[in-house]
């Protein structure tokens, strides 16, 4: 026995023409006995029929072209994300960068050599000491601790820094 609440779902389906035969029989039985549900069932059918008869609106003129233009723009964006396209288009730029890099590297190579004695003199260090291989490590911009230790350990015994190291 259907309740009125159960019947609502079936009324909705029947108005859509989407009710199974068994359910339809149960609903018809309920509607015979329930005066409250009968007008509701009629209303469901009437409204469904009215909505189904809604005349379609035509797609606005030029819609397809406007959408096509938007999709074209989407395609262009997709192209920008395509690495193959970038590889081809950026090849000349990459070549120019490589040439510029090569030119710059040559300039660095051709730069004047650093005069360690001159620097040592300006720092009031004995020029003879400054020219010793171990001492010259101090004037380099970047020297690792390992390099420094290696230089001290393998230095000429006349090197005063090495001597100091041995004395330690």
């Amino acid at each position, binding site marked *: 026995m259907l309740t009125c609440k159960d019947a609502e779902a079936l009324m909705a389906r029947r108005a859509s023409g989407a009710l199974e035969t068994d359910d339809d029989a149960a609903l018809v039985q309920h509607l015979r006995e329930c005066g409250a549900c009968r007008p509701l069932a*009629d209303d469901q059918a009437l409204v469904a029929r009215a909505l189904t008869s809604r*005349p379609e*609106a035509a*797609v606005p003129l030029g819609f397809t072209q406007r959408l096509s233009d938007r*999709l074209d723009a989407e395609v262009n964006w997709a192209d920008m994300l395509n690495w193959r396209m970038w590889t081809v288009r950026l090849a000349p730029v990459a070549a120019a960068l490589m040439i510029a890099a090569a030119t710059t590297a040559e300039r660095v190579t051709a730069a004047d050599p650093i005069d360690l004695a001159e620097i040592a003199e300006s720092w009031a260090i004995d020029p003879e000491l400054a020219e010793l291989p171990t001492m010259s490590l101090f004037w380099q911009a970047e020297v690792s601790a390992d390099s420094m230790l290696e230089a001290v350990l393998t230095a000429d015994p006349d090197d005063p820094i090495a001597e100091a190291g041995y004395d330690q």
Partner: protein
Amino acid sequence: MADAGTDVDRELVEAAAGGSREAFDELVRRYQRCIFNLARSLTSNDGDAEDLTQEAFVRAYRAITKFRGDSTFKTWMYSVATNVIRTHMARQKRRGAFWGTSLDADAPEAPERAVSREDVEGDVVRRDAIDKALAALPEELRVAVTLRDIHGLGYREIAELLAIPIGTVESRIFRARHRLRPLLEPLMTRTTSSSDASQAGRRDSGRPLEAKAC
């Protein structure tokens, strides 16, 4: 069993996913009328309907490679469009709340006050009357009944599309029609009666109402 239209769709989707713009354009041609009418019936505004239809197809174009074929392309396209339209409606509602105006203030007048039975003979007036009546419904009822009665989607399709139980779909459609009943009075031609419920039931259950589906 898949019909011929579904098979054609599947081929077009595969081609479009493979990069064929012509295939996607054909899908647009096949579904633009339906998607535009969905947007039109849910927003009651031609300008918004066109913008939203465009947006739906653009999103579908972006995501076509992710379409796995679990549902038909039609259901998937309706799902994309419904999401776009619902997002738009939610934004409109928030904007209305922020500025202290109700969304209903922008909505057209209910047809019971604006349309007479003689007026609805014309297609445009009849369509506007229906869309205005739908605009008076809460969004969740409007979407469900529109998908079912105007676009002819099945209950199961609607449930999948909206990610809600099928019983909720039935309930929403029942309540939507109940609320629309007085609003659509001028459009109704009474063809059934409660005294003939059995006969009407047999007729309706055997033959689904023919909505103008894609």
